[in-house]
């Protein structure tokens, strides 16, 4: 709505937010058309982190693809690994030993907590709550220490293998994990006291970027974004994979579908993940961590699609095998890419400050968006 009088005229400006910007969560670009502070139009421009993972996978053996999957949602590496190896195992009908299954659950849920910690910290930072950024990252360091203890890497873990996991957990892992889980409620209380309950934060986030359930389903949102709109849909309960059906946990669901709910729901999910990890630790059996799998992985000819509940939403791997030792085609259904589609709808009409909050609350990782 640009105004024009004989002597006064306003104009809409086109502003590039990104790809270098303090709060675009990676190399993401948004072409904003602004009328003053108000956002009139948003155009998502992605692809700045495209590395051709799907094409590269066609020229690597099945095991060699695993490090590429680390770099999809690089903030939750274990979950990507899990999705991929389970896809290949589904195609090859491999049964994974019990100990490996339990270890996979522990690592996957730790990864989920790590990813949510980043979201919580980054969203607080995006509204300029500098001090609130530190506690989640401080605790996340402990998770990364656990990963490093186990497989040598903090982020690009490549821990899962087709048929199990790469190595058993070292001594000291379980006690460190228990200490971390014992301290997690204190961290959540700290974050709640500093940010979640803060009036300014609530004023910034409540009612901002409201998505009703119909729109969410129409845009294909999944993960915490969908659950914040009122639908308790979690693949771990709806279509359990691995041994998730053996664990008792709740699906946090909130009703407003605004940025505040998307923030709070991730805090609640961290608590549930901690519950799952405790149960997995209690039930951890002895045994091998790797199944008897042929040296050269050659799945039978065919195609398979497998989905897991990733940290950002439903992470799906579509694999076509031609009988050889390299995938014929690997396609990755990335939740962040799909979730990003709803951003123009919720950001148009708000102002720039709301745009930043909306982007932060959807929680994207560019590695996953661009692959």
């Amino acid at each position: 709505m640009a105004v024009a009088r004989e002597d006064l005229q306003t104009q809409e400006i086109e502003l590039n937010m990104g790809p270098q910007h303090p709060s675009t969560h990676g190399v993401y670009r948004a072409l904003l058309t602004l009328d003053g502070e108000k956002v009139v139009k948003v155009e998502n421009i992605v692809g700045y982190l495209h590395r051709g993972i799907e094409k590269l996978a066609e020229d690597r053996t099945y095991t060699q693809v695993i490090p590429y999957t680390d770099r999809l949602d690089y903030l939750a590496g274990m979950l990507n690994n899990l999705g991929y190896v389970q896809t290949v195992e589904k195609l090859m009908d491999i049964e994974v030993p019990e100990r490996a299954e339990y270890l996979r659950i522990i690592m996957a849920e730790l990864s989920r907590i790590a990813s949510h910690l980043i979201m919580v910290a980054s969203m607080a930072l995006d509204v300029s709550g500098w001090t609130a950024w530190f506690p989640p990252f401080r605790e996340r360091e402990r998770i990364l220490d656990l990963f490093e203890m186990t497989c040598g890497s903090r982020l690009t873990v490549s821990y899962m293998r087709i048929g199990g996991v790469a190595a058993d957990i070292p001594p000291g892992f379980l006690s460190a994990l228990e200490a971390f889980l014992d301290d997690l409620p204190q961290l959540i209380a700290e974050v709640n006291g500093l940010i979640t309950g803060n009036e300014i934060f609530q004023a910034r986030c409540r009612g901002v970027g409201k998505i009703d359930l119909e729109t969410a389903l129409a845009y294909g949102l999944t993960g915490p974004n969908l659950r914040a709109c009122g639908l308790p849909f979690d693949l771990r309960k709806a279509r359990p994979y691995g041994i998730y059906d053996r664990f008792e946990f709740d699906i946090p669901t909130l009703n407003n579908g605004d940025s505040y709910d998307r923030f709070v729901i991730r805090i609640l999910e961290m608590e549930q993940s901690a519950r799952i990890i405790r149960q997995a630790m209690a039930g951890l059996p002895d045994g091998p961590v790797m199944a008897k799998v042929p040296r050269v992985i050659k799945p039978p000819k065919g195609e398979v699609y497998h989905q897991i509940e990733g940290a950002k939403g439903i992470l799906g791997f579509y694999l076509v095998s031609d009988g050889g030792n390299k995938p014929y085609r690997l396609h990755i259904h990335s939740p962040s890419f799909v979730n990003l589609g709803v951003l123009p709808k919720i950001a148009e009409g708000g102002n720039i400050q709301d745009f930043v909050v909306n982007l932060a609350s959807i929680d994207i990782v560019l590695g996953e968006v661009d692959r």
Partner: protein
Amino acid sequence: MENIFTGIAAYLKGLLVGAPPWRQTLAMGLLYLLGVLAFIFLNAIYLIYLERKVSAYMQQRLGPNRLGPRGLLQSVADAVKLLGKEDIIPRGADKWVFIIAPVIIFIPAVMVYAVIPFGKGMIPVDLNIGVFYFLAVASTTTIAILMGGWGANNKYALLGSMRCVAQMVSYEIPLTFSILGVIMLAGSLQTSQIVAAQEKIWYILLQPVAFLIYFIAATAEVNRAPFDLVEGEQEIIAGPYTEYTGMRYALFYLSEYANLVSVSALAVTLFLGGWHGPWLPSWLWFLIKVYIMIFIFMWVRWTFPRIRIDHLLGFNWKVLLPLSLANILVTGVGIKIYQLLTLGRW
């Protein structure tokens, strides 16, 4: 100890005996200016370091601790770094506006110190409209930020400076009205009179609401969190300061800290009893109180997230302004009742 600065000034004034009066006034004026500039620069250098240390300790980390004892030379390193930066003027920038903006923002930052009583008998210029002068001169900071944002030929800068105009102009009103309560009690705009009137009781006890309003409005005036939308780093990069490099950028930061010290100094003068205090020299008390105020400003900055522009303006016009008007009403009624009780007449 108490008279160390007044002693120096008196000695230098003694050297000028016999010179024509205009030369005396000019020389003393320059001396006071030098004193104020030294105060600003030393404080700014220390405050850059203090801000980083305070924020660090609040965030459970250490802050600068490598350069010099306890990291005290960090500001020196930063100053040297900024001096060595390339001086970039963006293509398409409005050249003169861009170049002059940092200078213009620094001038009112220095000028307001003319009416601050640093200690007993230590005001550079004891204007009888002291507080009014302070507010009027401080308002001109807005135009400098507007110039910085416009001259940079950068849409982020423009957005930042637009926000600045809206914010700073709006928050001046509750700032002024909150000070009016104090002026009504003291009966004078002269800062030395206001400090003298607080000999028995500090005005923060008589005007707590006004102090709170002043604190909030002052935070908005110096563009500190939670009102730092002008420089909203997560949204508009660095607002009007985006395209500035090197010493120009340093001047903006210097004036930001100079403004912080001046609003703290005004708060001390109007609400915290100025330089009054037992045993220690008056200027030391002044310094202690100013630093307490600065610490509270920093505490607030590192705790709260940023407020949104419509909430900012709504808060100003719908909450702070009526509250400050109510404060004036209550103060007025209170003064009359006090006069009635003590003097037996209206």
